[in-house]
Structures are given as structure tokens and as C-alpha cells.
């Protein structure tokens, strides 16, 4: 999701929705109705603005759940066990969709609005935003190892000296620069009042999505 796009759902509702999908999916995993619920929820998300995340997630989730479903069937010779595994994996995959459509900054603003401590919101924002950057850093260190002809990371000495030490050094440097940058912008952890310039508010669409998913769950239970 690009920086200019808006989150597809009110962030706290998104977290709640993910929680509901996973829990309902796990509780009803052994019943075929679980698949109806998950299919219905996927369609609801698809038509209510989550289409990009839906398209990105569906192929990997289908591949992984099919592989584990087939393996479980071959090992246990039991269709309910295979359905159970497939439902669980689909539930986890579909639950990720609302999370993928929430911008970390919106989640942070939302958490600030409901008075969650700033130390927690700052840490969460960094942990979410810096994950891709750190993947790049790790790749760069591996590239440097190749350039230096350091050999394979399977060798423990090489792993320690040429990979782990530079990685931790980079973490310390990034952390020092970032904390300086955060402090320069006037960010403090003290309990002083602060302004949230862009507030995040729930819309009618958010309530409709929640209601539709609940109706889908009730229908699956009745069926």
C-alpha cells in the first residue's frame, strides 16, 4: 500500500475483525460451514475496498493450505482433518487482509486517540515501518559478504564475524540516528499534552463491513 492511500477500515475495527475471523475460523475449523464463513468473508472484503490485499494474499494462501490439506489427508486418511487444516490456514490468511490494508501511521494515530501510551505506539510504528528496511539491510550484508569472499553463512565463525556483528552494528547505528531524529522533532515520552493533527474516524462503511461479517458468521452457524 502506498503512502498516499487511505486505510480501508478504521484501524481498531481492523484489528477486531482479524481477531474475529481467526477465532471463529479456528473454533469452527472442523465443520464445513467454516469454509462457507471464510468464503463469504473473503467476498465481503473483496467488494468493500480490500481488493488489492485480497488478490495479493489469495494465491499463496491457496497453495499453502492445499499442500497442507493434501499432506494431512495422506497421513491421516481423514477428510475432516484435512478440512480442519485447510480452514485454519485460510482463516489465518484471510485475517491478515484487514491488517494489510491498514497504514501503520493510521493505526498509531488511532491508538493515540484512545490514549495508549506513546512509548507503545512509537515502538509499534517503528517495528511495522522498519521491517522492510531491515530486510534490505540483511540482504546488503549478505551481498557485502559475497563481495569480500567471506564464504557461506553455514560456517558458524563466518556467520558470527561477517554477518551477526555487522548486523548488530547496523541496528545500533540505525537506532541512534532514528532516536536523534525523533527527538529533534520534539517527540517526548513524558505525559505532556500533544495534538493529533489527523484524527481517524470510523465511517458508515466500517460498520457495514463488521455487520456483514457477523451476518456471514451467523449464517454459517445456522447452515
Amino acid at each position: 500500500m502506498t503512502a498516499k492511500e487511505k486505510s480501508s477500515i478504521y484501524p481498531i475495527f481492523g484489528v477486531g475483525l482479524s481477531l474475529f475471523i481467526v477465532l471463529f475460523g479456528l473454533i469452527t475449523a472442523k465443520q464445513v460451514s467454516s469454509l462457507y464463513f471464510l468464503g463469504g468473508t473473503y467476498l465481503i472484503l473483496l467488494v468493500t475496498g480490500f481488493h488489492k490485499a485480497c488478490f495479493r494474499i489469495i494465491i499463496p494462501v491457496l497453495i499453502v493450505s492445499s499442500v497442507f490439506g493434501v499432506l494431512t489427508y495422506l497421513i491421516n486418511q481423514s477428510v475432516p482433518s484435512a478440512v480442519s487444516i485447510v480452514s485454519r490456514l485460510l482463516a489465518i490468511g484471510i485475517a491478515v487482509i484487514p491488517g494489510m490494508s491498514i497504514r501503520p501511521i493510521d493505526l498509531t494515530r488511532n491508538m493515540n486517540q484512545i490514549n495508549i501510551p506513546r512509548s507503545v505506539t512509537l515502538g509499534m510504528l517503528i517495528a511495522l515501518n522498519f521491517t522492510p528496511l531491515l530486510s534490505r539491510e540483511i540482504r546488503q550484508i549478505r551481498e557485502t559478504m559475497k563481495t569480500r569472499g567471506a564464504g557461506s553463512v553455514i560456517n558458524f565463525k563466518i556467520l558470527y564475524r561477517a554477518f551477526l556483528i555487522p548486523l548488530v552494528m547496523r541496528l545500533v547505528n540505525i537506532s541512534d540516528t532514528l532516536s536523534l531524529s525523533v527527538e529533534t522533532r520534539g517527540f517526548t515520552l513524558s505525559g505532556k499534552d500533544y495534538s493529533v493533527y489527523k484524527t481517524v474516524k470510523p465511517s458508515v462503511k466500517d460498520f457495514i463491513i463488521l455487520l456483514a461479517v457477523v451476518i456471514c458468521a451467523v449464517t454459517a452457524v445456522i447452515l
Partner: protein
Amino acid sequence: MENKKLFQKYKVKDIVFLAIVSAVTLVTSAVMPLVAHVPIFGIIQIVLGIQFSMFPAIGLMKVRKPGSLLFIAVFSGIVLVFMNQIMFFCLALCAILAEAVTLIIFKSYEKDAACFMAGALYLPLSLPFLYVWYKIVGGTDTVASYANEKPLLAVIMSLAVIALCSLGSFLGVKISKELEKSGALKK
């Protein structure tokens, strides 16, 4: 001897470092979903053992304050909130327990051994927690059922997890000490 408070205030740089450590723990744990449904007790902890002990130990060596491990658990759990909420609560609880045990024994994180112990205890504590949780919830394809079906394998896996986490925590302390010596890592 200076009488220091047990609970010290966090600075912005502490939170930033702990968040960065959490992010790198997450990045290096990306392989976890591939083994999550392998029917062996403790397989997830085996895969995550080194990362979930080494990086928290590094975090504790720099930010030697009670609550650091809990911060790491919460920050690294933010991604889990969207896919495995049980694991999120499990990690938070394990962090609290590991900190409590360490602080009862060592009183603070001043000694390197305290950082090692907290790092080494953090992930292995999730084994009994998940076992008890799935025992209560029930079911045939759960962590508890895998352990009940093959108890010997469960014991061996648990010992392997403890060994891996001890190794990871030891590595974390060693790396931090080396960087402290060179002046790169300041407390």
C-alpha cells in the same frame, strides 16, 4: 554503593532500540509460517529459538531496565495480532514471567547473567503455556495432542529448544560485550 531504583524511566532512544530489535526479530522469523502446521511439539520454537533469544538478549544488554523484554514482546507481536492472537498473548505473558523470574534472582539487569537468563527463558516458557492452553481448548490437531501422542519426542524437543535458546542468548550477550568493548554499543 549507589542505590538505583528498580523501575527506571524509559528514554526515546531506549524505545527506538527495542523496536528496531523487535523488527529484526520479526524479519529473521519469516520462515515460521512454513512449519506452523507440522505436527511436532515445539517445532515452531526450534525454528525461532536462536532469533527469539539472541535479539532480546542484545536488547536487554543495551536497555538494562525492567520491562524491556515485555516491550520487545509487544512490538514483535504487533504483526501476530493480525494472524495469531494466541501467540501474541503467549509471548507477552512469557516475557512477563521471564522478567519476573530474572528480577527475583538478580534484582536488576546490571549483571550480564541476568540478560542471558531473561533471553534464554523467554521462548522456552511458551512451550508449557501453549500446551496448557490447547489442553484447555481441546482438539485433535493441536500442540497438546502432538505432545500427548509422542511424549518422548516432546521432551527431546523441549530440551532442544532450551539448548537453542541458551545458545542464542549466549551469542547475544557475547556480541553485545564485543560491541561494548569496541565502543559501538553504549548502555
